[in-house]
Structures are given as C-alpha cells and as structure tokens.
C-alpha cells in the first residue's frame, strides 16, 4: 500500500510545472531565512528561557491562587496571565485547564486560562514579536489577557458553575519550597530577557537619536548583561566560578577575533550549557528541559515553515496559493475578513509556534493586520482536536458556547487592532 502510494506520488509529481517548482524553492528559501536569521539569536535563547521557567518557577505557588478556595477577584487576573509561566508547552495547557475547572477555581478562571495560555507563553510572544513585529506581539499578549477575562466571566455568568470538588488534595500541588527569594529569580529572568531583546535589536530607520544609539551599542549592552548573568549564576546558583570565567574568556577572545557576533554568541550558549550540565541537579534539569523544548518544537516548526513557504511563499515571492485569493478573503479590515480569519483559526490545528510562519506568509501576501491578530488569537487557543478534549471535560453545550465566544472575541480584537494600526 505504502509503496504504491509513494509510486503514485512520484508518478504524478508535477516537476517541471513552473508554479510547483517555484513553490518548492519558496519553501526552501523561507526555511533558509529562518535558519539564518532567527534560530541563533532568537529561538535558541528563547528555548533557554522557556527551560528556565519550567525548572525554576514553582508551579505550585501559582496554582494556589487558582485552587478551590481562591478568591474570584484574584483568580481571574492570575488565570489570564499565568499561562506565561505555566504553559510553556501546549501539551500542559489541557491538564492544567481540566484541573482548574474540576478541582480548583471553576469554569470561569479555567476557560480564561485556556484562552490566554497558548497565546502568552514566552516562546509564542518572543517569536511573534520578532517575526511579525513588536506591535503584533504586544497586541497578541494584551488581546489574549484582556479577552480571556471577558470570556471567563461570560462563561461563569452563563453557567453558574456548581460548587467545586472540595475534596481536592491541595498537598499534591503544594509548592516545592522555594530555595531562593523571588527577586533573585526576577533578576535572573530579567537578564536573560535583556540579552534576548538587545541582541535582536533591529536597525532603526534614522541614524540619529536614542534608538540608533541603542542599536549601535547593542552588543555592548548584550555583553554587559551576559557578564552580570554569569556572575548571578556563580553567586546565587552556585555555579563553579572557574567554569564561568573560562566561558567568559573564550567568548571575549572569539568576539575580538571574529567580526561576526554569531560566533561568540554561540560559544557563550554552549559554554553556559556545559557549565550547567556539569554543575548540580538544577543546572542539569535546566539544560535537559531546554533540550526537550527544542527537540519537541524545532521539527514541527520547520515542517510548518516549509509548508507555509510552499503554500504561501516567502516575503519575496509567491507560493502555490495566489496572493489575490488571500487579499480577497482576509485583506483589509472588514468584519467578514476578521470573522473568516477567526473561524478558520478556531478549527485549524496549529502545532506549537507554527502559526507564526503561516501568518508571516499570509501577511506578506495581502492579509490585513486585524484579521492576522484574529487568527493569532483564535488559532492556538482552540482547534478541532482539542475541542474534543475540552468537550470531554466541559460537555457539549459549554464547549460550543466557549468556541463561539472565542470566535466572537477574536473577531472583535481583530477589528479594533486593524482600526488602530
């Protein structure tokens, strides 16, 4: 069977048709662009941050605010933003959602979490801002947070949620006792985010003023952040000082020898990974969860990039789907374009992060900014496969209402955003 299918696929492979060939080339060139521009400075550091979040931030501490005894006024804001630290990977969103619904704060906060979680996790926000533009990244995070509260409250009002199961054993989600004060963790994450932001600082249009100043000094700022980060590792995380100094020294030498900043940057990343691997449990866990995310997300992301490139083309060229179709369906900022984008997004399944290259393709061929945001908001939050899981938790009626709310809210956010920008 499989052999026959392969044979047929190759028999009818439309090589020579110019459209097909051009699309294949578009797919490859888009993948090349990502590999050259986004992987080293953006994706890999983002994976390190995601790994650190999953190891160093105590989920138990956050979940306490979403437990059965939680005050509603606290539960909603926490549910709407906690996706950023709780749901680094989409496979953890659904168990957390089911847990909050059944044993914790009830249907309102649970649906708020489910809506915002996939949109505001660090990886999604970083990649969206980097590729689709900063205002898109911010709009996505803000839209997700604000409208998740609206959705949660609406669900709560429509379905007066029954009293939650009081028998929930809080001990199971009890926090592992924190081994360092919160502000140290904040500084630690702050430094990593600084390194990420400044090393990705884009060249501004004008050659004067504050933005240009930051741009021309971006490697200085990045290096200073990196040095402080190294010291923080030694002082708070008890890394071996000698190893950190070896890494710093090697990075500095490489930076002086080569003019391409990519080489010292990669050396520093490898060095940090090496120092972490050989230094205690926490460091090892950090590297191994970083590696887990990378292993899980990279193949899917690149498959998504190839498909997006093939169908939609890279920013420079057209793929197999003509631009005219795209701009006629989701161009501009009409109600219909936004609505169509929301509905498509709600049913379509996006593997983690693949929504970003797909949208890049759509936007460079005529999709409006409003519909793009609508798709970003409705897309990762629900999909046909996870609707089935949600239905097994909530039941058919509540699931239908939830999906409808998602579509409506995504459409509204899209229209507002499209009008502003």
């Amino acid at each position: 069977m499989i052999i026959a299918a392969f044979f047929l696929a190759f028999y009818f492979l439309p090589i020579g048709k110019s459209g097909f060939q051009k699309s294949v080339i578009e797919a490859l060139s888009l993948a090349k662009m990502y590999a050259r521009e986004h992987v080293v400075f953006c994706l890999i550091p983002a994976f390190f941050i995601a790994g650190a979040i999953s190891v160093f931030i105590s989920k138990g501490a956050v979940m306490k605010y979403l437990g059965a005894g939680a005050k509603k006024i606290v539960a909603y804001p926490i549910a709407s933003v906690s996706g950023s630290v709780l749901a680094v990977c989409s496979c953890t969103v659904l168990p957390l959602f089911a847990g909050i619904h059944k044993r914790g704060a009830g249907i309102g906060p649970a649906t708020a979490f489910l809506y915002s979680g996939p949109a505001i996790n660090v990886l999604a926000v970083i990649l969206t801002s980097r590729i689709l533009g900063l205002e898109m990244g911010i709009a996505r995070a803000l839209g997700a947070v604000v409208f998740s509260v609206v959705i949660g409250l609406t669900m709560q009002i429509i379905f007066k949620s029954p009293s939650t199961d009081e028998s929930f054993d809080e001990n199971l989600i009890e926090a592992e006792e924190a081994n360092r004060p919160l502000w140290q963790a904040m500084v630690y994450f702050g430094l990593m985010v600084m390194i990420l932001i400044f090393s990705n600082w884009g060249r501004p249009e004008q050659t004067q003023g504050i933005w240009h100043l930051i741009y021309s000094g971006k490697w200085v700022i990045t290096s200073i952040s990196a040095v402080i980060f190294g010291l923080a590792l030694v002082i708070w995380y008890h890394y071996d000082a000698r190893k950190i100094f070896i890494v710093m020294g090697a990075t500095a030498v490489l930076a002086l020898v080569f003019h391409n900043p990519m080489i010292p940057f990669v050396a520093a990343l490898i060095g940090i990974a090496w120092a972490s691997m050989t230094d205690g449990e926490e460091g090892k866990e950090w590297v191994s969860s970083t590696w887990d995310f990378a292993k899980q997300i990279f193949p899917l992301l690149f498959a998504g990039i190839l498909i997006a490139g093939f169908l939609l083309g890279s920013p420079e060229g057209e793929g197999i789907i003509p631009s005219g179709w795209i701009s006629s369906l989701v161009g501009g900022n009409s109600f219909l374009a936004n609505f169509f984008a929301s509905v498509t997004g709600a049913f379509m399944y996006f593997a983690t992060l693949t929504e970003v290259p797909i949208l890049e393709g759509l936007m460079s061929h005529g999709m409006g900014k409003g519909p793009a945001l609508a798709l970003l908001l409705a897309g990762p939050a629900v999909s046909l496969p996870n609707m089935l899981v949600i239905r097994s938790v909530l039941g058919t009626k509540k699931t239908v209402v939830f999906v409808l709310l998602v579509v409506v809210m995504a459409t509204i956010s899209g229209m507002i955003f499209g009008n502003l920008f």
Partner: protein
Amino acid sequence: MKIEILGKGCPKCSRLVQNTREAVKALGIDAEIVKVTDINRIVDYGVINTPGFAVNGIVKSSGKVLSTKEIISIID
C-alpha cells in the same frame, strides 16, 4: 504492582515511561506499566502538572521526570 504514568504524551511523559521501564527491569520485579492519557482520569488523580507517577493508584510524584534511581527508591 501497577505503575501508572499520567500525561498527555509530551516528551517528558515518554521519558518517564522509559525510565520506569528501566527501573522495573533493574529490579527484576513483576510490574505493569500503564500510560494514562485520558485527561479526566489524570485530573481525578489530582495531578495537574504532568507527568504524574502513580503506584497502585497512589500518586507519588507529579510534574517531574523521575530518574531511574528515584523510581527504584520509590517502588522498591
């Protein structure tokens, strides 16, 4: 003995299954290893951070990939 791994199939869950198999093999005991992927059953166990690890219906750990050594010390 019945060992259940609770999780929706993320890489962490499969690593935990792998480590559990190794632990059971190292101990040479007769144990049934079951993957639980149904979300409602996972929540009924009170596990919110996957992967969860349960022995004979009692949750021993959650949200963590236990090493083979740790698993041996739990089930032995």
